C-alpha cells in the first residue's frame, strides 16, 4: 500500500515534469518556437524522463532487494544458536517471523525472542521503506530540476528522447526472447537431472513406459521404466489421424471458399469456420470423450470391429476437426494471394475452373499450403486436453487406431499433477519429455516458416 502511494506520487511528479519542461521550453523560445531545436513536447518528455527514470529505477531495485536485505539483518540479530540451525529450519523460522509481523497465524509458540525478532523485522522494513521513499522522491525532484535547467534553444531534446524510446523498444522485444530462453533453460536443467538418473539411450529407445517408482525401499512397486517410444508413437499416430482429417477437409474448404463460393456465402461461411478455432480445447475434449468415442465404439460394434471406448481414432478425428481452421485459413490466404493474372492466363487458354485450380493455382500456392500443414501439425502434436479426455493413459506401443494410446503431453500432465517430489525420476521425466516435444515442434515450425518465406519471394 505504502509502495503504491509512493509509485503514484512519482508518476504525478513525472507528469508535472512534462508540463514544466514544455512551458519552460516555450518561455525559453520567447514566442518564436522556430528558435527551439525540437517541438516543445519533446522538452516536456525530456524533463519527465529525467524525473522518472532514476527514481523508478531506484524504487525497483529496492523492491527486488528489500526482502533479502531485511531478512539477512534479522537473522544476524538472532542468537548464535538459532543462526546455526540448518537452512530449512531457518527458513521456517523466518516464515514465522514474517507471519507474526504481518499478524498472520504462526506455527509455533510465540516466545519473547520471536516477538522481538518480529518487531525488529517490522521496524527494519519501515525504516527501509522510508529511506527508499526519501531517496526516490529527492531523486525525482533533483532530476526534475536538473532536466529543467538543461533546457535551452540548443538542447537536442528530440534526439535524446528518441534514443531513450529506442532503448525501451529494445528492452520490450528482449523480454519475449529472454522468456523463451528461460523456458528452454528450465526444461534443460531438469532434463539433465533426469538423464543423470535414467540413461538417455533408455529414454529415447526404450519400448516400455511405466513411470511409477517405489517411494520407500521396502515398498512393493514397479521400478519405473522410461522408454519414450510408446509416447511418441502415440503422439504421431494421433497427429497423423488428425492430419488425415484436417488436411483434405481444410484444403478443399479453402479451395471452395476462395474459388467457388459466392462473396456473400464466403462472408458468412468463413467466420463460422473460424469459430472452430475459438472453441476451447476442453470443450473439444468432452465432445470427443462423450459423443465421438461412444459413436465410434457403437459403430464399430455394429460392423464387428472392436473399438475401445478410449481410442486414438476418436481423439485424432476430433483433433483433426479442431485444426481444420489452421489449414483452411492459411491455405485460403495463399490461394487468394495467387495473382489474378494466373487465373486469367489459364482461363484465356481455354482451361476450365477445375483445371485452373489443379494445375495452376494449387501448384503456385503449394509452398504456402505445406507451411500451413506443418503449422497445423505442430499444433496437433502439442495438443493436450482432447487426448487426456479421449485417448486414455495406457502407453500402448501400437499403430492400431482402435486401441487406447497416450501422448507425450498427456504423460507430462499426469506426471506433474498434484504434489510431486522433485528428486524422483518420475517427476523429472516430464521435463525430459517436454524438452523432446519442444525440439520436435520447433523443428516443424522452423521448416514451416522457411517454406512460407520461400513462397513469398516467388511473385515479388
Amino acid at each position, binding site marked *: 500500500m505504502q509502495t503504491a502511494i509512493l509509485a503514484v506520487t512519482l508518476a504525478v511528479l513525472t507528469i508535472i515534469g512534462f508540463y514544466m519542461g514544455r512551458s519552460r521550453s516555450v518561455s525559453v523560445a520567447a514566442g518564436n518556437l522556430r528558435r527551439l531545436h525540437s517541438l516543445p513536447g519533446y522538452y516536456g518528455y525530456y524533463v519527465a524522463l529525467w524525473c522518472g527514470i532514476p527514481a523508478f529505477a531506484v524504487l525497483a531495485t529496492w523492491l527486488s532487494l528489500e526482502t533479502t536485505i531485511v531478512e539477512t539483518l534479522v537473522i544476524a540479530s538472532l542468537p548464535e544458536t538459532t543462526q546455526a540451525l540448518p537452512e530449512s529450519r531457518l527458513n521456517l523460522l523466518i516464515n514465522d517471523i514474517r507471519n507474526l509481523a504481518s499478524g498472520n497465524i504462526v506455527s509455533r509458540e510465540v516466545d519473547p525472542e520471536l516477538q522481538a525478532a518480529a518487531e525488529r523485522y517490522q521496524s527494519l522494513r519501515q525504516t527501509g521503506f522510508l529511506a527508499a521513499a526519501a531517496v526516490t522522491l529527492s531523486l525525482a525532484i533533483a532530476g526534475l530540476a536538473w532536466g529543467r535547467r538543461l533546457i535551452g534553444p540548443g538542447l537536442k531534446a528530440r534526439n535524446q528522447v528518441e534514443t531513450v524510446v529506442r532503448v525501451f523498444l529494445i528492452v520490450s522485444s528482449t523480454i519475449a526472447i529472454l522468456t523463451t530462453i528461460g523456458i528452454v533453460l528450465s526444461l534443460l536443467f531438469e532434463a539433465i537431472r533426469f538423464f543423470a538418473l535414467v540413461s538417455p539411450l533408455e529414454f529415447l529407445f526404450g519400448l516400455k513406459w511405466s513411470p511409477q517408482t517405489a517411494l520407500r525401499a521396502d515398498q512393493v512397486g514397479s521400478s519405473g521404466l522410461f522408454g519414450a517410444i510408446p509416447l511418441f508413437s502415440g503422439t504421431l499416430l494421433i497427429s497423423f489421424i488428425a492430419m488425415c482429417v484436417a488436411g483434405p477437409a481444410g484444403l478443399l474448404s479453402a479451395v471452395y471458399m476462395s474459388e467457388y463460393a459466392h*462473396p456473400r456465402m464466403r462472408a458468412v461461411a468463413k467466420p463460422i469456420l473460424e469459430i472452430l478455432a475459438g472453441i476451447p480445447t476442453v470443450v473439444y475434449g468432452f465432445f470427443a470423450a462423450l459423443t465421438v468415442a461412444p459413436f465410434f465404439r457403437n459403430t464399430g460394434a455394429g460392423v464387428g470391429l472392436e473399438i475401445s471406448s478410449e481410442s486414438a481414432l476418436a481423439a485424432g478425428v476430433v483433433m483433426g476437426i479442431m485444426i481444420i481452421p489452421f489449414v483452411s485459413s492459411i491455405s485460403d490466404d495463399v490461394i487468394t494471394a495467387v495473382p489474378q493474372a494466373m487465373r486469367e*492466363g489459364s482461363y*484465356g*487458354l481455354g*482451361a476450365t475452373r477445375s483445371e485452373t485450380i489443379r494445375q495452376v493455382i494449387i501448384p503456385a500456392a503449394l509452398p504456402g499450403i505445406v507451411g500451413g500443414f506443418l503449422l497445423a501439425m505442430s499444433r496437433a502434436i502439442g495438443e493436450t486436453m482432447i487426448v487426456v479426455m479421449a485417448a486414455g493413459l495406457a502407453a500402448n506401443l501400437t499403430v492400431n487406431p482402435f486401441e487406447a494410446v497416450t501422448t507425450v503431453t498427456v504423460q507430462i500432465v499426469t506426471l506433474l499433477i498434484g504434489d510431486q517430489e522433485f528428486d524422483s525420476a518420475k517427476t523429472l521425466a516430464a521435463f525430459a519429455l517436454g524438452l523432446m516435444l519442444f525440439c520436435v515442434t520447433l523443428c516443424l515450425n522452423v521448416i514451416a516458416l522457411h517454406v512460407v518465406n520461400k513462397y513469398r519471394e516467388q511473385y515479388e
Partner: protein
Amino acid sequence: MADSTPQAMPQEAAPISEPPPAAEPLKTSTDSGNGAVKFASRKVCVYYGEKQALFDVDLDVLKNKVTALIGPSGCGKSTYLRCLNRMNDTIPICRVTGEISLDGVDIHSKAVDVVHLRARVGMVFQKPNPFPKSIYDNIAYGPRIHGIASSKGELDDIVQSSLEKAGLLKEVHDRLQEPGTGLSGGQQQRLCIARAVAVEPEVILMDEPCSALDPIATARIEELIDELRENYTIVIVTHSMQQAARVSQRTGFFHLGELVEFGETEQIFTNPQDERTQGYITGRFG
C-alpha cells in the same frame, strides 16, 4: 476494370438479353470490302453493376488483319476486347448485352462452350503472366488440357514450333526446363504469346502487350505481330498511337465507352472523320 476483378467466377455466363429485333442483320462483309469478317459485334453494351462501360459498339474484325483499338484510359477498349473471348464472365458484377458472333455464330448462344471459345480465341495480357512452371510446361499447358498432342514427341514439336513462332526458341532452346518466371520481361511476354499460339487459336487478343516492356522488346513483339498476321487474326489494344499505326491495318477509336470511329488505319491517322479522333491523335487530349 480488370484490376478490380474478384476471385470468384459466376456459375453461369453473364445473362445476355435478346438483341433488339430492329438490329441490323449480321453481314459477312462491311464497307472496307476486303477480307472475311471474323468477329462481328452489334450493339454491344457492357455494365459493371449499375455503371455502363460500353455503349452500342458495332465493330467488325477482319480475318488475317491486325485490328488496333486505341483511346484514352478507361474508354472501354480493354472491356470490349475481353468481351470477344467472354473473359468478362469471370467478373461477377459484369453484364454484357448485344450480339457478338465469331464466324457467324453467336458466342453467347447455348451451343458455344466458353472453354472452346477461349481455345479458339487466345489472349495475351498487359503484364506478362507466365505460370510458375518451367518454360516447357508453360507452353505445354494449353495443348495438354485440350488433348491436342497424342504423344510426347508431338507435344515436343508443338512446344518447339510455338517458341519458334514467338521468336523465342533461339534464346531458350537449351533451358526449356527452367522456370518461365526467370526470363526477362520481354521474353516472358513472348513466352505468353507462344503459350497462346500453342493452342492453335484462330484469333489472338492482345491487351496492351507492350506496356510493361522496354523499346527493344516492344520492337520485337511488333515484328512478331506482323509475322503472326499471316496465320491469325489479331486484335490489339494499345496506348501507343505509333504502335497502332505501325502494326495495324484497321483501327478503332474509343472514347467514354463509345466507338467513335472505326476504319482503315491509314484513314484514321491521316484523315479522321470525327473531331474527337482528330483531337486524340494530334495529342490535344487523352
